[in-house]
């Protein structure tokens, strides 16, 4: 069989605590995405400590996803014109929602060469971290 290839580079570690939007598909700034494709990303809560009883790190009640400045998702679910999945993909299993993966589909096909913006508003349930 033909051998595949896995290249990797810029292996860095981040020591900055916080909540991040990462692993976008398509990646931020990328070109040539399919017009009928979905938008995906992870909210990563990279935090060092939280109250023992607190298991759900990303606060859904304070999370809002906007696609082209239109609200696509909040704690009540996907809004009209949008669908998709919200999945807790974090590890370890003993803490929930430290990585939350959104995959959002748009009911209409994007226009050719349209720039699609994604704005994520979110916070953790950890006081003073945001």
């Amino acid at each position, binding site marked *: *069989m*033909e*051998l595949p290839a*896995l*290249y990797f580079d810029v292996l860095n*570690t981040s*020591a900055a605590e916080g909540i991040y939007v990462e692993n976008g598909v398509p990646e931020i700034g990328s070109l040539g995405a399919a017009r009928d494709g979905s938008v995906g990303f992870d909210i990563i809560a990279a*935090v060092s400590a939280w109250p023992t009883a607190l298991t759900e790190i990303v606060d859904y009640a304070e999370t809002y996803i906007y696609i082209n400045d239109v609200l696509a998702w909040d704690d009540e679910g996907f809004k009209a014109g949008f669908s998709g999945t919200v999945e807790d993909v974090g*590890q370890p299993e003993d803490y929930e929602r430290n990585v939350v993966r959104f995959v959002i589909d748009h009911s209409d096909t994007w226009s050719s060469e349209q720039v699609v913006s994604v704005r994520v508003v979110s916070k953790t349930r950890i006081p003073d971290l945001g």
Partner: protein
Amino acid sequence: MPASLLIGGHAAGRIQPTNWTPPGGEWCYLVGADSDGIIEEIEDGEESGIEQSIDLTGIFMIVFAMKFRQTSTPGRTFRLSVRIDDTEWFGFSIPTGTTVEYVRRAINATRFTGVHNVAFMIKEASGS
């Protein structure tokens, strides 16, 4: 990072690739074959990768750039994974004959303190 395993007789290691422009410079790590069309015998479930022991104390995320070229052999697929202590924390497969490239991928490494084994792996996963 030391090359840890072989796949199809090809060593995994640090190279100057001809089929990717690494964002960090001329060199990058490669598992598999840089050139298209390299044919080798691969067993079901065979895997290869590059691994290193890293002190993750105080580290919140592991960040990297990557390119993954799937085999073009019909009916066969490989799965990419990043494992910490043999547990997959990041991974996916893509259709036969396709390629993806990302400037930035991130793994939440919050839970770790001390030295852990971090491995970038590909595994023949047609039977999975």
